[in-house]
């Protein structure tokens, strides 16, 4: 009994350990990944000459996390000689000049009207909602086998005089 008491004393009197539970990095990983895709789409698509001067504008409608991520990581980068500029748009049909327009799922109901408004402008519409390609989007993100991929609807880009490079086509999950 004495032995047991001494052992209990010994173990109980050892200094308190510095064990701390880790905190989760509250990141929107989908936003991180999509932001990187958008930047690479910009590098792999050729815009008409009129769009090759001034800033390279990426507008984001909805999806504030994606907007934040683009601002944080890509705002200072360039596409060729063009400085990237990130703009946040509230749901609207009054869309000023940009190169890429990302329409988040919150505004997806407006997509057909947005596409109609922009049909003659070389603006690449990117979405992440099933069925968006039928409503004017050229690139749509899909989550397949645990990863974000994109499906390309070539016509929705070429009709707007956007030239899609072969790399972007060959790496797409599907080209329609």
């Amino acid at each position, binding site marked *: 009994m004495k032995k047991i008491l001494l052992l209990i004393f010994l173990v109980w009197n050892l200094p308190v350990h510095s064990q701390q539970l880790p905190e989760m990095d509250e990141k929107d990983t989908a936003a991180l*990944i999509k932001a990187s895709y958008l930047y690479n789409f910009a590098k792999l698509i050729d815009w008409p000459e009129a769009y090759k001067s001034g800033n390279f504008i990426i507008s984001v409608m909805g999806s504030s996390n994606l907007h934040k991520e683009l601002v944080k990581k890509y705002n200072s980068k360039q596409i060729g000689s063009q400085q990237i500029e990130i703009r946040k748009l509230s749901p609207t049909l009054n869309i000023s000049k940009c190169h890429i327009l990302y329409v988040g799922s919150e505004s997806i109901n407006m997509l057909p009207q947005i596409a109609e408004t922009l049909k003659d402008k070389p603006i690449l519409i990117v979405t992440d909602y099933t069925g968006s390609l039928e409503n004017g989007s050229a690139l749509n993100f899909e989550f397949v086998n645990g990863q974000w991929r994109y499906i390309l609807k070539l016509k929705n880009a070429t009709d707007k005089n956007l030239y899609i490079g072969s*790399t972007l086509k060959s790496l797409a999950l599907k080209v329609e």
Partner: protein
Amino acid sequence: MKKLFSILIICFIFSPVILNAQIKDKIEAAYALYNAGDFEAAAAAINEVVESPKGEKSKVAWHIRGFIYKDIYIQNEHTDPYSKARNEAIFSHKKCIENDPEGTLVAQSRNAITYLSISYYNDAIEIMDARNPKEISEADKLYDQYRDITLYLYPDSVLKNSDVDYYLAMSTAHRKIYERDRGKNEANWEFSNDYLTRVLELDPENWAALYSKSVSYYNKGAFNLERLPEAQGITDIYRIESESMRSIEFALPYMMKAYEIHPDKIEAVKGLKTIYRNLNKLEESDEMQILELQLEDNIKD
């Protein structure tokens, strides 16, 4: 000291082993030096005794030697985790116990060993808390010393709880080092994870280890995505994303188990919400968000 002295006198008088007079004189001389505070001279004198064939069998000589080296350790080497005096003190007390079948000096020697074993433990924790990447692995050696001595003193003792606490603390220490510079200290993430594995081998339902392991995998995957701005094209995005998502997928079963064990712990509910969301399992994530709100309401009530 007085107590030690009286015990030694009794041992000298009643010891069944008749000590050679010369040995006895030398032990007394060493003891006098020790008593006078000249520990180094006392150590030299007692070493001469234990190195002789007859002195080597003397429990009293080893006992005194143990206290001499214990005091050298306390006086000169207590800040040195690799103190030789401490090792010598423990070795001497063990030799004393080995040569003391009657058990006259055993209790005192065991107490001295206990004291010294705790100092090993304290040193291990100190090294762990310093979180120096170059030295932290030394903590294991010191903890193992503490462990071995505890098992020597109490062979039937179960050190599972102590081991679990230690491994969790080591995991935390390595994680903190990793978090200081995730690029440079990636090996520490592996070490941190290994310690959690060791905890789960001992206690598969350890909530802290399950939760920590899940967060560790999730955070690693999420952090890996920070490399995306440097991605060299779409193929590189695929590669980085694939590594990250695999890590986040690894996080899920650990968090699920943590939740099963303690469904009322909000950390696990929040963890599942975040992991599900990042695996694009939005319905499951929303369910967890509802649970999270319910738990928060319960806390307020």
